[in-house]
């Protein structure tokens, strides 16, 4: 269950200014059924002052509450003042929204912007951008704006605020690029995975024999012992030890250390069962 503020609850349960103004001065129609939320905002403007605002919203509690409070906020404002309202202002007026619901406040700001553009008879800047998220129809212009205005720092933030990337996820890489570009940050240095050293069994056997001969056997022989390679099964090296002092356990560990260091760091050395 979402944690909604009392203000959100209040505007959801008793929404203000529901409806549609007849012959509006400006109309903002944003969102769609497929997106899961949509808002139609109609404004009545006289002498450049918004005298009435009404809304119709399809969506969840926070979408309805955002729309309702938006109509209250713009009533009585001059158009140029109303144009300065950001989605952060809408969310703040509601006492905050859960971060996954911030896109509802963005929808409010978009509808207001569209209605004002409609009143002024100018095209919307967002409509000119390049479509990035096909699932929710979000353009790069909208994404960049959200990043700057709401100080977004991750792709997840972008999805919470604009919905971009919340569908099929195909554009997530693109969103990261836009984020990096907008923040003027260099992409992080990609982590290069450590390439696992691969050896064929034959190579392993040869190398192990070589190391045993040159670096292990001489030391053992000095104490009257010896070592023979019995088998190599994957990374398991089986040897037979004839230790003079009966300290074969310690010897096995030393052989393993040596072979790991000189041949392959995943080797396990076991003594042949007698």
């Amino acid at each position, binding site marked *: 269950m979402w944690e909604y503020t009392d203000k959100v609850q209040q505007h959801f349960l008793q929404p203000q200014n529901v409806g549609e103004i007849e012959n509006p001065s400006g109309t903002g129609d944003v969102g769609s059924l497929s997106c*899961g939320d949509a808002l139609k905002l109609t404004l009545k403007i006289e002498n450049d002052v918004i005298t009435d605002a009404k809304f119709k919203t*399809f969506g969840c509690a926070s979408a309805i509450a955002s729309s309702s409070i938006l109509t209250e906020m713009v009533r009585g404002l001059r158009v140029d003042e109303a144009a300065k309202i950001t989605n952060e202002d809408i969310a703040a007026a509601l006492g905050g929204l859960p971060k996954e619901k911030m896109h509802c406040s963005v929808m409010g700001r978009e509808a207001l912007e569209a209605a004002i553009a409609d009143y002024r008879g100018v095209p919307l800047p967002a409509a000119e951008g390049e479509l990035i998220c096909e699932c929710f129809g979000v353009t790069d212009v909208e994404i960049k704006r959200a990043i700057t205005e709401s100080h977004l720092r991750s792709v997840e933030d972008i999805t919470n605020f604009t919905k971009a990337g919340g569908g099929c996820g195909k554009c997530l890489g693109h969103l990261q690029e836009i984020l990096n570009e907008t923040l003027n940050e260099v992409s992080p240095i990609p982590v290069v995975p450590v390439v696992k050293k691969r050896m064929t069994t034959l190579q392993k056997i040869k190398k192990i024999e070589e190391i045993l001969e040159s670096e292990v056997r001489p030391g053992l022989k000095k104490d009257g012992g010896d070592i023979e390679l019995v088998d190599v099964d994957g990374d398991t090296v089986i040897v037979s030890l004839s230790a003079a002092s009966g300290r074969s356990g310690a010897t096995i560990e030393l052989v393993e250390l040596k072979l790991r260091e000189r041949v392959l760091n995943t080797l396990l050395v076991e003594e042949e069962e007698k």
Partner: protein
Amino acid sequence: MADYPVIYMDNNATTQVAPEVFEAMTPYLTELYGNPSSMHTFGGQVGEAVKKARQQVATLLGAYPDEIIFTSCGTESDSTAVLSALRSFPEKRHVITSQVEHPAILNLSESLEVMTGRRYRVTALKVDSTGMIDLKEYEDALSDDTAIVSMMWANNETGNIYPVKEMAQMAKERGILFHTDSVQAVGKVPINLAEVAVDFLSMSGHKLHAPKGTGILYVRRGTPYVPFLAGGHQEGGRRGGTENVASIVALGKACEMAGARMEEENTRVKALRDRLEAGLLQSVPQSILNGNRENRLPNTTNISFEMVEGEAILLHMNLYNICASSGSACTSGSLEPSHVLRAMGVPFTAAHGSVRFSLSAYNSEEEVDFVLGKMPGIIETLRAMSPFWKG
């Protein structure tokens, strides 16, 4: 909200613990705290209680007691069954499931490489507009490379019942292991594993009036099995960990009650569901039933109210303390509506406004009538606000 008593119609999410179940389990949280593995009589009597519970579960499922493994939840049972099959046949690299599975299977099937270190080909069977699968597509998907089939017995959102008996038989004839996630089906429809050739069956206690935190994995005698939790000798070495005794006793009692209530579930509860469903479809214009009307659980109905959004509906219902669920995007925390409704191709106009009511034996006719009295007004209020509603 305090003015209205709770009307709980969200029993596919979880159920209330039956008073009889609670009564049966409490001694094992108080005086009977022994370890069932202990040698002394004090612990031994607790072992007897676990044994009785195992028998009660086996009776409900038509299984042998030694085929029942107690787990912590349905999800653990699902993971155990699927991963056991993959470990038993590491050379087989194909898994069959469906697009409408619970996330416990859906997300597991997408994580097999991470879990096993091997790559798998996964066939997720498609569904039609009523949510049913095509047995021909299933038959064609079965191959020598298939390690396991995992098909839910009944769907949690629509209540649809799948032809598990036929599907299990088809797999068996090809020597392929079969698992069924029966979390929603057990206790709501009769299950007799003596007649259904599944190798594994998962169920969960809290869906049938036992507490949360208990589950069952049924493993047929003779089915190869690799434990998920290695450890002590509990559950015959098939699932390590000291038994959650009180909850196991509760689950046993709940299974016994479910068996006794099976007829009521399929008559009285079904009649309540039908009354609610028919009433809503009739009183609310442009409301659509999701799922397969003939072939589904007796307690579930999933209805879409077009042009309104599910979270908004649920929060209005919440004012009257009516509890249900929705497949809308906003309730899931994701931005897309339920994967089940999308797989069925339910249009967006309806998917966002879907509400699932799931009843139990604790619901009454008065409650159904109260809900029927409130829903049309709620939908009307929200539609009056919707820019898409041209009523």
